[in-house]
């Protein structure tokens, strides 16, 4: 295979990764890593480095639009970033002591239940009353819908914060799954509207990934020839996706989200059982 053909295949995969990532609030790693390792025979170290680049590209590319449209909740994102970054640091520390394969299987199963739940869930236009802690932290916000600007409340800040630490630990431990648990923490636990949850997850993802970026550069995980089509493709995909999300129905987004996290779960369980 020539370098040109190789780059074109990666480019197409990267556009898909950016598109899915921006619509679901999940990182593109789940698409990029299997494409590179299974189909193209790339070593896992280079694949992980490339996935990190794709996660940051998805985050910055789509968040640029989501923040401007006022969908992402930047205060909520900033506050929860404390939890995810602390979790990411903890994750790399505990990786030496816990059997990551067992963790992968357990969380894979949790994701499957969540995927099923996401299929069943109905959007109730839930106007929850914010908890005192959420109000004190200035977390409740507004977001644009087809019926105009809608105000929403936020509850269970402590529960959401703990789930975010778990999401951070998982990203430090497994390299995947943190986006899924971020969306679950906001959507299920804190009762943040779905679109706000996925776009805020997107907005946060880049910061969680930044912590590992320098280490990856130094260790040579980031191969420029491999990352070039990924940077370009993911950004194109993410910018397209962000245009689609703004207009899409929440119900359709939930279905895409459910399918993607089920695939992610299968991937996690498979990884756990084969190591």
């Amino acid at each position: 295979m020539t370098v040109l053909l190789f780059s074109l295949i990666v480019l197409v995969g990267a556009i898909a990764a950016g598109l899915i990532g921006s619509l679901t609030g999940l990182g593109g790693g789940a698409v990029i890593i299997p494409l590179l390792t299974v189909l193209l025979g790339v070593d896992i170290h280079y694949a992980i480095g490339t996935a990190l680049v794709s996660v940051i590209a998805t985050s910055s590319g789509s968040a640029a639009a989501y923040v401007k449209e006022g969908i992402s909740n930047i205060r909520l994102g900033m506050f929860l970033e404390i939890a995810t970054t602390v979790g990411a640091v903890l994750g790399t520390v505990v990786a030496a002591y816990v059997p990551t394969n067992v963790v992968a299987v357990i969380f894979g199963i949790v994701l499957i239940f969540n995927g099923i739940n996401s299929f069943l869930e109905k959007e109730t236009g839930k106007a929850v009353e914010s908890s005192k802690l959420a109000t004190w932290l200035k977390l409740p916000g507004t977001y644009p819908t087809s019926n105009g600007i809608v105000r929403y409340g936020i509850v269970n800040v402590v529960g959401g914060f703990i789930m975010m630490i778990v999401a951070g630990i998982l990203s430090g431990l497994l390299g995947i799954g943190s986006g899924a648990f971020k969306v679950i923490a906001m959507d299920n636990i804190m009762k943040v509207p779905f679109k706000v949850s996925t776009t805020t997850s997107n907005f946060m993802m880049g910061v969680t990934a930044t912590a590992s970026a320098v280490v990856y550069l130094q260790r040579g995980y980031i191969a420029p020839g491999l990352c070039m089509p990924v940077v370009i493709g993911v950004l194109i995909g993410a910018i397209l996706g962000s245009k689609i999300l703004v207009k899409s129905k929440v119900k359709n987004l939930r279905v895409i989200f459910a399918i993607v996290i089920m695939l992610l779960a299968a991937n996690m369980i498979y990884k756990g059982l084969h190591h």
Partner: protein
Amino acid sequence: MAFLSKIKDSDIELAISKVLRYGVYIAMTFAGIGGFVYLYRHGNEMVGDQYAQYVEKDDKFFDYVHHMFVGIFQGKGRDVITLGIIVLLATPTVRILFSLLGYTLEKDKMYIVITLIVLAIITVSVMGGLG
């Protein structure tokens, strides 16, 4: 400086979205230019097994950046791509710095503290890599 006291959340949102957008466009431009040079020179070569086996490296970050600039001045496409990647990897951190500026202008003490905590944690974990 009356306008500074009237800064709103929507102004911060606009600034952040601009930071992200410019960061992304600059990264894409460098990756595109570098990619064009790289593919022009190497596009017809075989990929072979150049990515099949990971070669461990342990560069000092500043040596890494130094090598990159040397390569750029020699007109190497791959080093121009690397510059684009570094710009991209820096966007989330620059975004946090702009939020900090915004909350400072808004005099929102709680969020100044929250943003500083996030910056401190990132600094610690990046320093772990630099050490």
